[in-house]
């Protein structure tokens, strides 16, 4: 059986802003270039000290139909991994091959325009996620039924509650029918009944042989939906024997450590001094 997602040696390095001002200007660039030039003349290398690896040497294969839960403390690299797989950001090293169409929902309501109606936003959001208009038309009734916002369909979405927003956004995303669906903790906003509905829908997606990546801090949901769990900590990916074992490992490690680690925590395998990849 061939994998649908193949990840090899994936790594992402971010540069920490040198100053508190994190939006660089042309002036900064010129000053920086001068400093770099003179620094190099003086035999010093300015590169390296201000960067960290959000993700390092990540390898895994995913087969069609797997529902992968990704767990780990805040800032561990979960979202970075999803962003690389969704092609929003590029890896610094390594590669990933995906043998199918990807649909991702990293945040609720991305691409929704407050001044357009719910109906118009369904089409807009679907287009942003890569869905054709004919496809949306075919699935329109299903999307509406799932989202339960039918009577507000012709109202501008700026008057929607956050729950309605979420329901509409999620409804569009799950009806995309991508081969690989990437969800980054977007369900937390919904109420209990909608969360249950989403989890049922995800199981349905799985039974159709499609693949789901699902980031969550809700271990109950992970345990219920996922048939495989990946643990990311400090940019390093590990996988225990089975869902329960990996969750137990995470919970155990988390309580023995001093809680969620920060962005600045160094990945255990990383030697920051030798970071000479592309920037």
């Amino acid at each position, binding site marked *: 059986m*061939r994998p649908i997602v193949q990840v090899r040696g994936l790594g992402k390095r971010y540069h920490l802003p040198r100053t508190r001002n994190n939006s660089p200007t042309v002036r900064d660039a010129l000053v920086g270039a001068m400093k770099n030039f003179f620094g190099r003349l003086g035999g010093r290398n300015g590169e390296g000290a201000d960067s960290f690896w959000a993700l390092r040497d990540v390898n895994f294969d995913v087969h*069609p139909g797997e529902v992968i839960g990704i767990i780990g403390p805040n800032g561990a690299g979960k979202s970075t991994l999803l962003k690389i797989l*969704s092609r929003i950001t*590029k890896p610094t*090293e390594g590669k990933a091959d*995906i043998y199918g169409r990807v649909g991702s929902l990293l945040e609720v309501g991305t691409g929704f325009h407050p001044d*357009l109606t719910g109906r118009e936003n369904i*089409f*807009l959001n679907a287009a942003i996620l890569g869905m054709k*208009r004919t496809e949306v038309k075919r699935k329109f009734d299903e999307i509406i039924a799932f989202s339960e916002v039918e009577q507000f369909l012709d109202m501008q979405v700026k008057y929607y509650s956050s729950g309605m927003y979420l329901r509409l956004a999620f409804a569009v995303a799950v009806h995309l029918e991508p081969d690989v669906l990437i969800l980054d903790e977007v369900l937390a906003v919904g109420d209990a009944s909608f969360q249950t509905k989403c989890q049922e829908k995800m199981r349905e997606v799985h039974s159709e042989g499609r693949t789901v990546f699902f980031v969550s801090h809700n271990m109950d949901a992970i345990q219920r939906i996922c048939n495989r769990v990946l643990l990311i900590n400090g940019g390093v990916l590990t996988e225990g024997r089975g869902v329960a074992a990996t969750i137990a490992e995470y919970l155990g490690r988390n309580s023995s450590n001093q809680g969620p680690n920060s962005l600045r925590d160094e990945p255990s395998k990383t030697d920051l001094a030798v970071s000479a990849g592309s920037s």
Partner: protein
Amino acid sequence: MSRSFQLGMSLPDEPLIRIRSGRVWTLIDLHDVWAHSELFYFLVWRDLKVRYKQTILGASWVILQPLLMTVIFVVFLGMIVRVYTPGVPYPLFLYSALLPWTFFSNAVASSSYSLIAASQVITKVYFPRVLIPAAVVTVRLSDFVIAFIFLIPLIAYYDVRPTWKLIFLPLLVVQLTLLALGVGLWSAALNVKYRDVGTIIPVLLQLWMFVSPVVYPSSMVPVRWRIVYNFNPLAGLINNFRSSLLGTPFNGWSLAISAVITVVVLVSAVIVFRRVEDEFADVI
């Protein structure tokens, strides 16, 4: 255990998506852009809809902007400074150049901010980023078409007969759009990387207008400066745009220079844009 082996789903032999590290030195992935063509239409449609929904004046603003500028320049340059425009009434001379100029300047100014305005989407969804400035330029092009309609009564009022030269007008508009897109892509990409670019662009555009034959004829430029003057791609475009509308003589030389520069600007813009595109989500 995974039940995937029961499903018999057939996977393609080649990956649909290849994610690789490293930078690229390529032109825009046209196949990818084409795959997202529907998104492009939606972005244009959304902008048009939101604009005309919010203000009843929406459509009229589009005409008012070049019209008010025409009035201002007619009063100050036409009546007080008395700029001499041989064979063409000054108001018509102005409006026929303020039309392409307003389009160009608005297109560049709004594309330079377009990516930053869309940062929410850029950090959360993948699609070819070039669609954002391209949609902005297209919206401005539709403004241009609306403002152009007002030119017809103006031409009739001054009793100017259209000539065969009018058939070149669409080609000039195409070139103008490509130039606006090229300059817009450059400024949009630079503005993401260096935030002070956004504040410089309005100043540069102001300057650009005064080194272009918008409010004065290029015959007022000293002869020894003419060649240098024509290296401004808008000089050839605006002069010939006016000639095409009003039947005054074409200037093939300046148009040729302008066409070459347009191609250079557009190709370099696409390469630069593609190269920095991958970093947008990280630096925006």
